[in-house]
């Protein structure tokens, strides 16, 4: 892997940019690997990267039915924050946030992590109580979060409407300054490049069609559209399709998959300096470095794998955006899209061993997995390498739905579900 640097740019400028190499190779699949990761999204590629760098396991294949980073990694609204209520969630999301800081240097790839601040608006007494509870809980866990008056909120984000005449006036806000955004594609590409350089095989257009198990139940490998590939350890990181893959291994999951939509506007000059979220009117917005407003909507109400969704969901979100930012009422929206998110009953992810020996699963990130990408890959690689969870992901078992030890962010995740 040739290092990217200002000198590399200068050198290539001198010779007509003919020396750039492919960022990752596309090898033919081998007959057998030590570890197979199903799904080349951010979480899967990060898992492969940390398997190689932290645990020295490089005989790894990442199988992807489509193209690398083409699922939810390329479809989310790129928001990063760690202001979750419960200790377990705070642990894993803040682990990720600490890795975001310095990720570009670690990967030698600019993931454009920008700690521009995530501000969550309160519109009523209940919001104030909930958000202040989050501020205090976060601070006890060493996570920055502070309470702002409406005037301070407007100072932090000037286009925000804090008029008392608004239908849902802003009565306060919680601000996590370390929160922000990153370039989602670059995260997948950066991890892919780093993993590939260490010998990991990234195999695109290779759909897993079955999971093969030995008579004693242990995993033997996976059937794919490019033939059988053997492995003693298989990690399923397939987002909305996780339950489909797990079913192939005979494991029924506490998951349901829903469409989640987002949209972007035409590009404009910098006007939104941070991320603004509101659960009560349900909208979140930030501005990309290209100038587009990036707007996240809610999920549709029914199970679907269609990667699309109802127009009324987008309308509802744009109503809320216009309420919060009246200056955007005449903006044109450029495009919208959907992704399929796998949601657990308690809205917390599952990163765990499964009842099948050698089969591991990292799923259930629901509507907010992007922010956790580095942390999720880091602890999931540990889980696979050691056949034992890292202390950070130890609570995120499948068994919690039998024992009742839920991590019930459903009511506390600081986003509406």
């Amino acid at each position, binding site marked *: 892997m040739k290092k990217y640097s200002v000198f590399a740019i200068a050198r290539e400028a001198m010779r007509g940019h003919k020396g750039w190499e492919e960022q990752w190779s596309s090898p033919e699949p081998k007959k057998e690997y030590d570890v197979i990761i199903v799904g080349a999204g951010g979480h899967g590629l990060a898992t492969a990267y940390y398997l190689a760098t932290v645990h020295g396991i490089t005989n790894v294949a990442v199988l992807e039915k489509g193209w690398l980073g083409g699922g939810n990694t390329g479809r989310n609204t790129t928001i990063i924050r760690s202001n979750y209520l419960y200790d377990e969630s705070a642990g894993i999301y803040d682990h990720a946030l600490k890795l975001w800081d310095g990720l570009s240097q670690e990967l030698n790839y600019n993931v454009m992590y920008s700690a521009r601040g995530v501000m969550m608006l309160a519109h009523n007494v209940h919001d104030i109580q909930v958000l202040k509870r989050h501020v205090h809980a976060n601070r006890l866990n060493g996570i920055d979060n502070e309470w702002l008056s409406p005037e301070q909120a407007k100072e932090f984000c000037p286009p925000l409407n804090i008029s008392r005449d608004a239908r849902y006036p802003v009565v306060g806000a919680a601000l996590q300054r370390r929160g922000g955004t990153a370039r989602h594609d670059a995260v997948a590409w950066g991890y892919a490049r780093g993993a590939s350089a260490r010998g990991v095989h990234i195999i695109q257009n290779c759909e897993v069609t079955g999971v093969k198990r030995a008579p004693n139940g242990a995993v033997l490998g996976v059937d794919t559209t490019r033939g059988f590939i053997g492995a003693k350890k298989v990690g399923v990181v397939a987002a909305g*399709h996780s*339950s*489909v893959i797990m079913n192939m291994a005979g494991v*029924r*999951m*506490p*998951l*349901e*998959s829903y469409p989640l939509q987002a949209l972007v506007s035409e590009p404009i000059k910098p006007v939104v300096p941070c991320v603004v979220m509101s659960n009560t009117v349900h909208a979140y917005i930030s501005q990309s470095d290209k100038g587009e407003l990036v707007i996240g909507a809610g999920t549709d*109400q*029914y*199970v*679907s*794998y*269609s990667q*699309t969704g*109802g*127009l*009324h969901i987008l309308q509802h979100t744009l109503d809320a955006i216009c309420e919060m930012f009246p200056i955007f009422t005449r903006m044109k929206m450029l495009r919208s899209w959907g992704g399929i998110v*796998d949601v657990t*009953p308690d809205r917390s992810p599952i990163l765990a061993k499964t009842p099948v020996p050698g089969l591991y699963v990292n799923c259930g990130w629901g509507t907010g997995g992007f922010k956790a990408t580095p942390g999720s890959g880091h602890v999931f690689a540990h889980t696979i390498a050691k056949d034992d969870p890292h202390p950070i992901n130890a609570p995120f078992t499948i068994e919690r*739905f*039998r*024992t*009742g030890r839920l991590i019930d962010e459903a009511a506390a995740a600081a986003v509406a579900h």
Partner: protein
Amino acid sequence: MLLIRCPYCEEERPELEFRNAGEAHIARSANIAGESDDDFEKFFFIRSNPKGIIYERWRHMHGCARFFNAVRDTVTDKFVMTYKAGEPKPAKLPGVAK
């Protein structure tokens, strides 16, 4: 937006009038307190989440307000049929090969 046929109103109405109520044909135990942890987990948390034909409940919230069942393809979001609550799971589906 989906167009959904309410089997009670016998009319196709826009999705906005309806609330999805999750997977259908999951029977609640008559003795729920006596359920084992395993059985309770299956009843309460485990879902089939199929890529393909799903049997699901809907409620005509802003119409007759009644619950009914529907068969839908989760890949195309097209409804195969709807039927009244309490009716058995249809053995044969119109227009579906498998």
